[in-house]
């Protein structure tokens, strides 16, 4: 059996299992709380795994291993930002949000504000962040099928994107939050299992001596000890000051973005109490932390055993480092058949990873369309639960279709920056609004609207005029390094990541919007403060 056939078989097994769990979940999905928040009945451990499943995207798995394999240490900077970010969620957001919200991020923001403008802003921001993130994953799926199966034709990529899109719509529409959570759990277990197995095999090859693995990686990379130090990819000496500021900017966006990602925030609603929300984040931190330690070994292992040149020749961004490593270490330890099996397994895991993440994003954005925009803005709170859930399902179809079309359209574009942009937008618009809502008594409607639109707008505008969109020149392969062809150049903002400027701007807009408006609802803040800290009046789990 070829590795392609085996990978497809394994992937179909994953799809079969998750569809079974989704259909089972659909039978227990009766009301809006079930659909949006899984009945708030998941345990902390289950939700912790699901947090890992939602968070460990293909960008984390294939992307970081690839950056480490090609540029060495700098990939590790990503892992650390992605992990430390969870402390913001743990200490400042998870429990308070669980106590004061209901289904979406906007529930917390609209708690003591005029609901319509705030929910509109939060809905716009949720959809924007989710679409950026979705698009990156969809394009990644198309690229992955080309890399792993040698199917480079446009139609094969387009077909993959359509398939991924249809599956994610099915998970969300049929299973709601319950089904989607089970998809995340299965994916997290598979991903951790696969990464652990490869890591142990690689470490075993080097007698469990990290130092000798690292020196072999440095030697094979052709870059010597510099491969083990920061500075080959981010803030290189050639980029000068702008490059180093870009490193800070990226670091800020990563560490502050997580606690503003809508698909992560709604995870806190799936458990019975704030205490369970805290515990599930602890589980999540454990799982995600271990996973990033594994990717470190995967990345350096790929450099040592496959070689940076071979990886770069297969994919310029290094996205095939982990699958190629799986094949190589399988061959070394178990012979040719072992290599085929491990490659197929990791390829199937990579697809499962993409599928789970896009399902989570589709659920978050369709929940926001139905609960925020439809039920509260259009129907002014008059819609019934059934109407809301029906609209959420219709929205999942529409968002899924939009993601499929954009994904096919963006197939040839360099969209790798979209994940970092999603984090920057979340950190610039959503996080200031959430933190001010939870901690600042004076905060009001104008402030919330200003923070979200101001942060979102400045992040997007700065990116449009940044080198990632135009003016970066051409790479060694003759292709433009920016989104636009090399002949177009309207770039004036020097940083690739807008966070360094747009995050402080988001907080500033929120502050100015608040103090320039007279609105001040002290009574509602009393309610929010008591409720968020004690859980009095918090939404309870539905008994089944």
């Amino acid at each position, binding site marked *: 059996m070829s590795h392609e056939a085996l990978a497809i078989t394994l992937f179909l097994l994953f799809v079969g299992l998750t569809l079974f769990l989704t259909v089972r979940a659909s039978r227990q999905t009766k009301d809006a709380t079930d659909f949006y928040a899984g009945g708030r009945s998941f345990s902390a451990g289950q939700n912790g795994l699901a947090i890992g499943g939602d968070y460990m995207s293909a960008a984390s798995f294939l992307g970081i291993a690839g950056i480490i394999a090609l540029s060495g*240490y700098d990939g*590790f*900077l990503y892992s*650390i*930002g992605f*992990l*430390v970010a*969870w*402390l*913001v969620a*743990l*200490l*400042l957001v998870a429990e308070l949000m669980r106590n004061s919200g209901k289904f979406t991020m906007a529930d917390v923001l609209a708690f003591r504000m005029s609901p319509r403008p705030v929910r509109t802003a939060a809905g716009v921001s949720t959809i924007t962040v989710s679409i950026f993130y979705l698009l990156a994953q969809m394009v990644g799926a198309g690229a992955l099928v080309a890399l792993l199966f040698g199917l480079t034709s446009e139609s094969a990529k387009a077909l993959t994107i359509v398939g991924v899109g249809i599956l994610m719509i099915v998970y969300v529409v049929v299973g709601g939050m319950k089904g989607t959570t089970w998809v995340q759990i299965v994916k997290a277990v598979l991903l951790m299992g696969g990464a652990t197995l490869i890591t142990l095999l690689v470490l075993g090859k080097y007698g469990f*001596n*990290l*130092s*000798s693995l*690292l*020196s072999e990686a*440095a030697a094979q990379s052709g870059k010597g*000890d*510099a491969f*083990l*130090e*920061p*500075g080959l990819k*981010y*803030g290189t000496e050639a980029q000068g000051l702008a490059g*180093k500021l870009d*490193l*800070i900017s990226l*670091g*800020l966006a990563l*560490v502050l973005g997580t606690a503003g990602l809508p698909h992560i925030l709604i995870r806190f609603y799936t458990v019975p109490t704030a*205490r369970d929300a*805290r*515990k599930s*984040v*602890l589980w999540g*931190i*454990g799982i995600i*932390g271990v996973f*990033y*330690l594994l990717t470190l070994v995967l990345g350096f292992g790929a450099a040592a055993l496959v070689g940076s040149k071979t990886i770069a020749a297969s994919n310029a961004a290094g996205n095939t480092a982990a699958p190629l490593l799986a094949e190589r270490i399988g061959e070394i330890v178990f012979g040719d058949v072992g290599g085929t099996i491990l490659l197929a397994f990791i390829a199937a895991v990579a697809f499962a990873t993409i599928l789970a993440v896009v399902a989570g994003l589709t659920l978050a954005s369709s929940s926001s369309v139905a609960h925020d925009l439809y039920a509260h803005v259009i129907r002014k709170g008059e819609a019934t639960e059934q109407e809301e859930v029906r609209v959420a399902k219709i929205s999942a179809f529409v968002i899924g279709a939009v993601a499929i079309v954009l994904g096919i359209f963006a197939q040839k574009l360099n969209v790798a920056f979209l994940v970092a942009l999603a984090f920057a937008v979340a950190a610039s618009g959503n996080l200031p609004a959430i933190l001010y809502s939870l901690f600042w008594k004076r905060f009001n409607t104008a402030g919330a609207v200003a923070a979200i639109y101001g942060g979102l707008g400045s992040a997007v505008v700065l990116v449009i005029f940044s080198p990632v969109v135009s003016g970066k020149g051409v790479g060694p392969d003759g292709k433009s390094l920016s989104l636009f062809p090399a002949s177009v150049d309207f770039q004036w903002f020097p940083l690739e990541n807008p966070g360094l400027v747009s995050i402080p701007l988001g907080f500033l807009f929120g502050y100015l919007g608040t103090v320039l408006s007279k609105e001040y609802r002290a*009574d509602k803040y*009393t*309610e929010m*403060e*008591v*409720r968020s*800290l*004690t*859980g*009095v*009046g*918090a*939404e*309870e789990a539905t008994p089944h």
Partner: protein
Amino acid sequence: MSTPREGREVNAVYEELRARPEFSELRRRFRAFVFPVTAAFLFWYLLYVVLSGWARDFMGQQVLGSINVALIFGLLQFVSTFAIAYWYSRYAGAKLDPLAESLREEARR
């Protein structure tokens, strides 16, 4: 649904809870932990990022075989993240949860 009904009556419950010494103590304990610890881990993280950009000779020093300062510093970020998460869960379990629970009891009466 457990959400209290809207109106004056509900707000009176929250006003009353907020006026209790247990609530002030709960808020004080919560903020006394999360604000300084957040400032500390953000500083510690940004220090790491800044050193990665500007102190490359220091970060490149080899400590044990091929293991250099940059790798140890990065791994220490993992250690500190795990430690803070564990520390907070212990602190919340011992210092926050009992107070929150007694206030919820109070609200039920």
